[in-house]
């Protein structure tokens, strides 16, 4: 599990004393179909401590979504286990929120934006006044307060994605899983949303697993970056991001350490892609 770059510290930070929140042990997933089996994930082992914000990067099709769906209890692993707060995950755990890659399809077409965000809260039995406040705040945070009575299909792609994010944030989960949540939003909004996630993370102490393709984003956001190899997928590197805890779009991104880290991640991903049976 140790990294191979001299200047870069890899492996989970030893000075973090919070207990383990999420533990993935020897996870394997094979999709079987008529046309043959596909081994999406071979053998993944890693841990997330409570309140950690970890980014996951890896080549397209390497099994990130598969991993996320196993963690969310939506998919049974072929081998290995996922443990959340000491309990093995067999179905979707409580107080977990997921933002799916297919944002457009994860919204309820028959509910307005506000109703979409409100639904999980209502289901959790939150009192009305509190609920409405939470929804309004979340919509404001993603910049959609003006669209709250529109239906999802009346929104642009980026706006839909933000609704899904608002829904997850308003839910105030203990564990937040996000699958390329900013893929469809513009650079400026993206920066704002990145800061939103870090703010939410700090304020709520939520454990976050964040899948992204954007290397800068992974370095800017994460406390740790997990790099997956090309399939058959294993963890290629577990990189600790030793940037200051208070981050800021302008200063943090211009730190020399930031550039070092991003260059390192980039090189690793390129290695990941070439390392095994090349994907593109």
């Amino acid at each position, binding site marked *: 599990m140790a990294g191979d770059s001299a200047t870069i510290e890899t492996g989970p930070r030893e000075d973090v004393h919070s207990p383990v929140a999420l533990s993935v042990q020897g996870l394997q997933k094979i999709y079987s*179909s008529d046309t043959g089996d596909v081994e999406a994930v071979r053998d993944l082992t890693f841990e997330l401590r409570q309140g950690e914000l970890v980014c996951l990067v890896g080549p397209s099709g390497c099994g990130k979504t598969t991993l996320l769906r196993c963690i969310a209890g*939506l*998919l*049974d692993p072929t081998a290995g286990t996922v443990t959340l707060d000491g309990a093995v995950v067999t179905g979707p755990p409580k107080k977990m929120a997921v933002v799916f890659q297919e944002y457009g399809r994860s919204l309820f077409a028959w509910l307005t934006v506000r109703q979409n965000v409100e639904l999980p809260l209502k289901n959790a039995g939150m009192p009305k006044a509190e609920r409405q406040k939470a929804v309004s705040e979340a919509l404001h945070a993603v910049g959609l307060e003006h669209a709250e009575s529109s239906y999802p299909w009346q929104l642009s792609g980026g706006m839909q994605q933000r609704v899904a994010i608002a829904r997850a944030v308003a839910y105030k989960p203990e564990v937040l899983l996000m699958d390329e949540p900013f893929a469809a939003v513009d650079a400026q909004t993206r920066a704002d949303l990145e800061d939103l996630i870090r703010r939410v993370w700090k304020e709520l102490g939520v454990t976050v697993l964040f899948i992204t393709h954007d290397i800068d984003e992974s370095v800017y956001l994460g406390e740790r970056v997990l790099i997956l190899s090309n399939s058959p997928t294993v963890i290629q590197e577990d990189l600790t991001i030793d940037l200051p805890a208070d981050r800021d779009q302008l200063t943090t991104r211009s730190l020399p350490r930031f550039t070092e880290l991003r260059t390192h991640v980039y090189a690793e991903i390129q290695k990941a892609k070439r390392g095994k049976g090349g994907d593109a």
Partner: protein
Amino acid sequence: MTAAASTSSPVSPTSPPRRAHGRGAPLPSWVLGVLGIVGFLATWELVVRSGLVEAEYLPAASAVLREIAELAGTSEFWAALGRTVRTWAIGLAIAASAAVVVGLVIGPSRFLRRATHSTIEFLRPIPSVALIPLAVLLYGTSMQSTLLLVVYAAFWQVLIQVLYGVGDVDPVASDTARSFGLGALARIRHLTWPTALPYVMTGLRLGAAVALILTVTGELVIGGGGIGTEIALANSGGAVPQMYALVVVAGLIGVVVNLVARVVERRALHWHVSVRREAL
């Protein structure tokens, strides 16, 4: 049992059925189906044996089964069965192909849909049985009379489903097809038809049952041979067990038809959510 099954059943297409791993080998669906039939027969037998209904008016299941076995030894029975199945098959084929063609012509055009709407809604609820004098007038007591009823009744079943299916084409997919220069015909073949296919399948299964009902009813009321005529004969002769035996045979034809439809569906719709969720 219900609770457990219903939480694990509506999983995503990629997840294999949980019980395949957890609870030992699942019962194959045909075993369950047979169990269902056995359960029903047992209930029937009990209802009669316990005297809830007099055996004179509703013979026990065992008596009816015995009668079926007896019937199966006579050649007239098989001739009647063959006749019924032939009328049914021809009627359904005519109705279904006509309905699919009409549906594919009317469905994609807003103008045609609106222009024909009132007429369709007017003609649809006209009971086929009310057309009996007309059928007899045109075709006497020959097979065509019954065929007319069958075609009339089954046509609407399939047509409505085709119309709904055609309306369900994904606009993004449709835009894709149009932008790649697929003409009207090519779009029907490559886009509209596959999208409507699940609906057509439902329509076919509905239509098949209605066609069977009308075949038997037509034979019953108009005469001219077939299971329906045999039922009428048994009825007017007071041969109660034989009548029920024939009714059960009519039902069994329905079961067989559905089995065939399911197999066809599984092959034709292997890509559809509803099928692929279960195929795994």
